[in-house]
């Protein structure tokens, strides 16, 4: 039964993606282009060469982190829309650590910078968590406000204290030994991929096999039962935000150590927000997030080649993401279709 339920959720997710892509195709058609050609370049951009595949993985990595950050929050009933801000804080702290301690050897410096990023993301997420636990201020609004505040804060710190000479608002480059080693030469696809998968595994075990994860989910499912059974739900809420923010912070620090090699203002194309779509599509489960992030990685890297070669604005992929969220949020839409079409009749659950 549990297996059937999982299978059904996977089927709904696949149906949501296909429906969203079909609607996207319709929009391409309506705007006077060939949907077939567009999706060919989408596919080509994502898988056409070793370089393209590496690019797809590259786009996947930050989405694994931000998607997982949002998913962990969801598991505890918290809607962390602040992954974007936490990512900026994480990136900034990682760059800072790498620059300040640049005379340390790599095997110490890299973990140190990663940890600094995670810690900064954690602390930035903790404030909305504390406000939610102590005053009831809804985290949806406070985390959004903290995105604006966090991005402005990093810009301020950068401009006033750490800016490299020149027209661009950015820090100087971090030391060679602070950079994550590349997996495929000249692609910037680095060990960050393994860090992401490692974090997925850790979170999977944490959620499903430890008392800590049990309490986290318990608070999300029924906060009254949690209190009744002796769980301090305020503490769980704050801890969950710390964990969620820490994962989002890693998205930023791996971007800095693996891809950018410095902190640049406004570097994120909205990874934190795409993370919401990733979490929703992945049903807030670690393995689901992994696949959903990969799918969105395909859309991101394929979207670019689509824009380049088929002249379709890549923002179409944002539309597809929005549609995916809507469809996944409302699985009954496919039940309606199912009853109308009769394709799946005989399945009477």
């Amino acid at each position, binding site marked *: 039964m549990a297996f059937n339920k999982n299978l059904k959720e996977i089927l709904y997710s696949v149906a949501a993606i296909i429906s969203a892509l079909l609607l996207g195709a319709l*929009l391409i058609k309506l*705007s006077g282009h060939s949907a077939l050609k567009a999706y060919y370049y989408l596919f080509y951009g994502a898988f056409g060469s070793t370089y393209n595949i590496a690019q797809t993985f590259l786009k996947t990595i930050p989405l694994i982190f931000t998607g997982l950050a949002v998913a962990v929050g969801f598991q505890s009933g918290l*809607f962390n*829309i602040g992954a974007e801000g936490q990512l900026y804080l994480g990136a900034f702290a990682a760059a800072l650590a790498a620059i300040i301690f640049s005379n340390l050897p790599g095997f110490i410096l890299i973990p140190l910078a990663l940890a600094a990023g995670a810690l900064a993301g954690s602390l930035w997420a903790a404030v909305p968590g504390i*406000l939610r636990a102590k*005053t*009831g*201020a*809804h985290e*949806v*609004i*406070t985390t*959004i*406000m*903290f995105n*604006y*505040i966090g991005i*402005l*804060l990093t*810009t*301020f710190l950068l*401009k*006033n204290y750490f800016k490299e000479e020149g027209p661009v608002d950015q820090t100087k480059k971090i030391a060679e030994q602070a950079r994550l080693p590349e997996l495929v030469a000249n692609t910037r696809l680095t060990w960050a991929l393994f860090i992401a998968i490692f974090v997925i595994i850790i979170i999977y075990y944490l959620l499903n096999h430890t008392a800590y994860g049990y309490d986290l989910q318990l608070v999300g499912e029924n906060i009254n039962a949690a209190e009744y059974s002796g769980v301090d739900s305020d503490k769980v809420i704050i801890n969950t935000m710390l964990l969620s923010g820490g994962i989002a912070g890693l998205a930023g620090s791996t971007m800095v150590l693996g891809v950018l090699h410095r902190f640049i203002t406004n570097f994120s194309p909205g990874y934190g*927000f795409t993370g*919401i*779509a990733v979490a*929703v599509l992945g049903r807030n489960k670690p393995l689901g997030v992994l696949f959903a992030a990969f799918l969105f990685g395909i859309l991101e890297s394929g979207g670019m080649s689509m824009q380049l070669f088929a002249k379709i*604005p890549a*923002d*179409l*992929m*944002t*539309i*597809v*993401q*929005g*549609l995916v*969220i*809507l469809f*996944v*949020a*409302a699985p*009954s*839409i496919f039940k*309606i279709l199912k009853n109308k079409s009769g394709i799946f009749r005989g399945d009477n659950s």
Partner: protein
Amino acid sequence: MNVLGTIFSINTLAAAIRLVVPIALAAVGGAFSERSGVINIGLEGMILTGAFAGAVGSYYSGSAFFGVLAALAAGAILGLLFSFFTIDLEADHVVAGVGINILSLGFTTWLMQVIWGQKGASPQVAGLPEIKIPILADLPLLGDLLASNSPIVYLMFIIVISSWYLLFKTPLGLRIRFTGEHPEAADTLGINIRFIKYFSVTLSGVLAALGGSYLSLGHLNWFSSNMSAGRGYMALAANIFGQWNPLGGFAASMLFAFTDAVQMRLQGMNLNIASEFIQMLPYVLTVLILAGAVIRSRPPAALGSHYKSNK
């Protein structure tokens, strides 16, 4: 230079009234939606879509009036879509609302490039003229403030007051509030809760979009990417702070708008404060207000839940 004098001047207040329009209209929309039991995070996307549709309508027709009509229609469509997902398909309100916001962002940015071939901003379009109301001009003090404004500003005042009347004095308003408190009870009284919710949520879309059209037609006369810039979320906070009451929501929106106006004035004054901190003001204020307000507030009892009659 007298900083405080500059901050608390009629000019700042006038700027605040211009800035309040989209927030207040969306907050009133939020009051309708949430009083009927539907959390509307999608206000942000509805403002954005309204701003875009207003610009497009004005661009093609050459008339700002048709632009506003197009914005209202777009708001209604988005409101109906959101209603369908949250009411009929029983989608989680918050997740679906985020979906609406991302969809709106994607649609407007994409269509901008399809229609105008550029990503940042649209070309200039015909904007709404300012209307002078002679009687108001004669008022002492407020005369300058109120005499000459965009028609949407006057419309906003009318809408705020009539929305309060509708919600708290009329049968429809009682039914909306009843539905948000206890949909099952409303159902047993023969109230058509599906209609009530559809009406309220669609109206919230229309109002937010009207607010959006003010951004592109009453203020700047063009559309730019992600023009709503978080106003929908501020409207949500204002609605909560205003206790789900259009009058309270307007007052809270004024507070945000005033802070924003102060922020803009301060930026122009070359003070010894980093501009980033000044820009943070409205956001920080939103957080502080929310943290202070929620403890005492009591949302509609059935907010965020699903109820279907006739199982």
